[in-house]
C-alpha cells in the first residue's frame, strides 16, 4: 500500500491541503511516499505501526515533520498508542524538557480511548500494563535546509546521498537490534524519571537529491545487514507498491527479513522546476 504527499511550502497544517501558491521562496521541496505491510498471515487490522506527516512552522520558517512509531507486539492496544504518538509529534514541535509530560498527556488520551469499553478480565489486566511503542520524529527546516531527528527505540532514519549511506540513526549496526528496544510507555507516571528511555538526537544539513528513509525495525535491520555486506539496499528496496508486497514476502520466506509489521516512509528532496529555472535573485 502506498500513499503520496507533496510538501515543503510551509503553509500547510496537519491534515490540511497545502496551498498551491505561496510567496515564500521554495529552495526545495520534499515529496513523501509510504509503503507498509502487516506481518505475514496478519490482517490490515492487526498492523501496529503508524506514521504521519505534517507541515508546520511559520511562513518565514516552514518546517515539515514526519513521525513513525512501532507499537510493541507484546502490548495491548498498541496500534492506538502508535497512532496517538505520531499524530501528536508530527504536528507539535519537539521541545526539550517537555517530552515526557506530553507523553503522559497522550497516555491519558490513550486510556480514555481504550479504557471505556467493557473488557474481559485479560484485557483489563493487560490494560493496566499500558502500551509501548518506539518513536522516530524527523523535522525538515525547509528554508534553512537542515533536518533534525529524535528517536526512542529502534525505528530508524537512513539518509542516502549520492548513492552512499550518509547517516544512520539511531541504530548504526544491525547487531544492535534486539527483542528489548527502548520504548515510549503510556504509563509514564509509573516510571521513575531516571528510568525513562533516552531520547536520541541528530541533526545535519540536507541537499537536493537526498533520500530520507524512515523505517521500522525489521526492515531497518535488513537494510543495515545489507549495507554491512557491501551492497546498496536503497537500490534493492522496491518503491513500487506492486513490487513491494512480493519482494517482502520473498525476503521473509528466505529468513533475511524478520516477520514483523513493516513501514517505509521515504522523503526525497527535489529541486522544484520553477526554482531551477528562476533567475538568480538580485544582489
Amino acid at each position, binding site marked *: 500500500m502506498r500513499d503520496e504527499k507533496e510538501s515543503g511550502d510551509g503553509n500547510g497544517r496537519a491534515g490540511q491541503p497545502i496551498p498551491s501558491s505561496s510567496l515564500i521562496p521554495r529552495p526545495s521541496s520534499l515529496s513523501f511516499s509510504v509503503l507498509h505491510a502487516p*506481518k505475514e*498471515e*496478519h490482517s490490515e487490522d*492487526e498492523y501496529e505501526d503508524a506514521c504521519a506527516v505534517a507541515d508546520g512552522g511559520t511562513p518565514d520558517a516552514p518546517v515539515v515533520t514526519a513521525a513513525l512509531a512501532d507499537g510493541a*507486539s*507484546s502490548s*495491548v*492496544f498498541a496500534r492506538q498508542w502508535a497512532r496517538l504518538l505520531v499524530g501528536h509529534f508530527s504536528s507539535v514541535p519537539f521541545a526539550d524538557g517537555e517530552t515526557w509530560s506530553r507523553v503522559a498527556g497522550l497516555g491519558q488520551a490513550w486510556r480514555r480511548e*481504550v479504557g471505556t*469499553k467493557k*473488557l*474481559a*478480565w*485479560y*484485557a*483489563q*489486566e*493487560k490494560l*493496566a*500494563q499500558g502500551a509501548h511503542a518506539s518513536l522516530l520524529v524527523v523535522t525538515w527546516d525547509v528554508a534553512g535546509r537542515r533536518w533534525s531527528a529524535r528517536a526512542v527505540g529502534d525505528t530508524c532514519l537512513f539518509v542516502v546521498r549520492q548513492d552512499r549511506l550518509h547517516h544512520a540513526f539511531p541504530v548504526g549496526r544491525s547487531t544492535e537490534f534486539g*527483542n528489548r528496544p527502548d520504548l515510549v510507555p503510556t504509563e509514564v507516571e*509509573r*516510571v*521513575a524519571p531516571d*528510568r525513562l528511555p533516552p531520547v536520541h538526537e541528530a541533526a545535519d544539513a540536507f541537499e537536493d537529491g537526498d533520500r530520507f528513509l524512515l523505517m521500522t525495525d525489521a526492515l531497518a535491520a535488513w537494510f543495515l545487514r545489507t549495507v554491512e555486506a557491501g551492497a546498496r539496499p536503497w537500490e534493492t528496496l522496491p518503491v513500487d507498491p506492486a513490487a513491494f508486497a512480493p519482494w517482502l514476502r520473498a525476503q521473509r520466506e528466505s529468513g533475511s527479513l524478520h*516477520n*514483523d509489521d513493516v513501514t517505509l516512509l521515504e522523503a526525497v528532496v527535489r529541486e522544484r522546476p520553477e526554482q531551477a529555472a528562476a533567475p538568480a535573485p538580485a544582489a
Partner: protein
Amino acid sequence: MPYTAEINRSKPTAFFFLIDQSGSMDDPWGMDGTKRKCDAVADAINRLLSTLVIRCAKGEDVRDYFQVGVIGYGGSVKSGFKGALAGRQFVPISEVADNPLRVEQRTRKEDDGAGGLVERMVRFPVWFEVDASGSTPMREAIETAHGAVKAWCELYPLSYPPAVINISDGEPTDGDPSRAAAALKEVGTNDGKVLFFNIHISSSSKRPVEFPDSQMGLADEFAQRLFEMSSVLPPRLVDEARKEGFAVSEKSRGFAFNADLRALVQFLDIGTRTAELR
C-alpha cells in the same frame, strides 16, 4: 537451528502440565509452612495460565499462539481442567481465557518504578482446583503426556516444540519414570525435541535450586532423578534465565528444587518464554 521457530496462529506451540495431586501434596511446604504444597502448586499454575493468556491478549482478542493441556495425577491420571474445559487434552489459549472456573480478586505487590513496591488489586482467574489424595502415578502421567504431545507434533510439524512441565513432590508409586521420560524427550517437531521440565516441591527446608547444571547439592535420589529426566535448556531460555538473575550455564537443565512461590512462578514463566510471538 532448533528452538527458533516463530510462533504464530498457524504454527502455535503447546504447554502440557503434569500436576502431582497425590496425598502427600497435602503436607506443609518446606519453603512456607503456612501453605500446603498443593495450594502453592495450584496458585502457581493458575497464575501461569493467566500470564500465558495475557501474553496472547491483543486488545479484546486473545490470539491462539499457544495450546494448553493440564493433567493431574493423584490415585489416577485425569484431566486437570474442570467446567467447560473438562476432559479436553489441548485447549487453544483463547478458550482457556474465556473459561476460568471463576475470577477472584487478589492483591499483588508490584514494582512502583522507583525501586519500591505497591499493592494492586488484580483479577485472579482460577482454572485449576486444589486436590490431594491417593498414590503418585507419575510414570503413567508421563506416558499420557507422551501420547498427547506425539499426536500434537504430528498435527504441527513446523511448530516450536511443546514443553511438558511436571510439578511433583517427587516419589512415584508406579515405578521408575526415567524410561518414560526418555521416550517423551524423543518426540518432537522439525524445530526440536519436546522440552521436559521438572519442579520438585519438597517438605524439606533445604536450600532451593533452580536450573542446575549438575546433580551436586540436590537433596535426595528423587530430586536427582527428576534432574536427570529434565531437558537441557535451549540457548534462548538460558539467556532469559540469566536476564532474570539466575546463575545458569549452557548445561543448565529445566529443573527446580524447592523453589519458593516467586521462584516457582518465575521458573514456569521462563520455561514458557519460547520464541517470539508473531
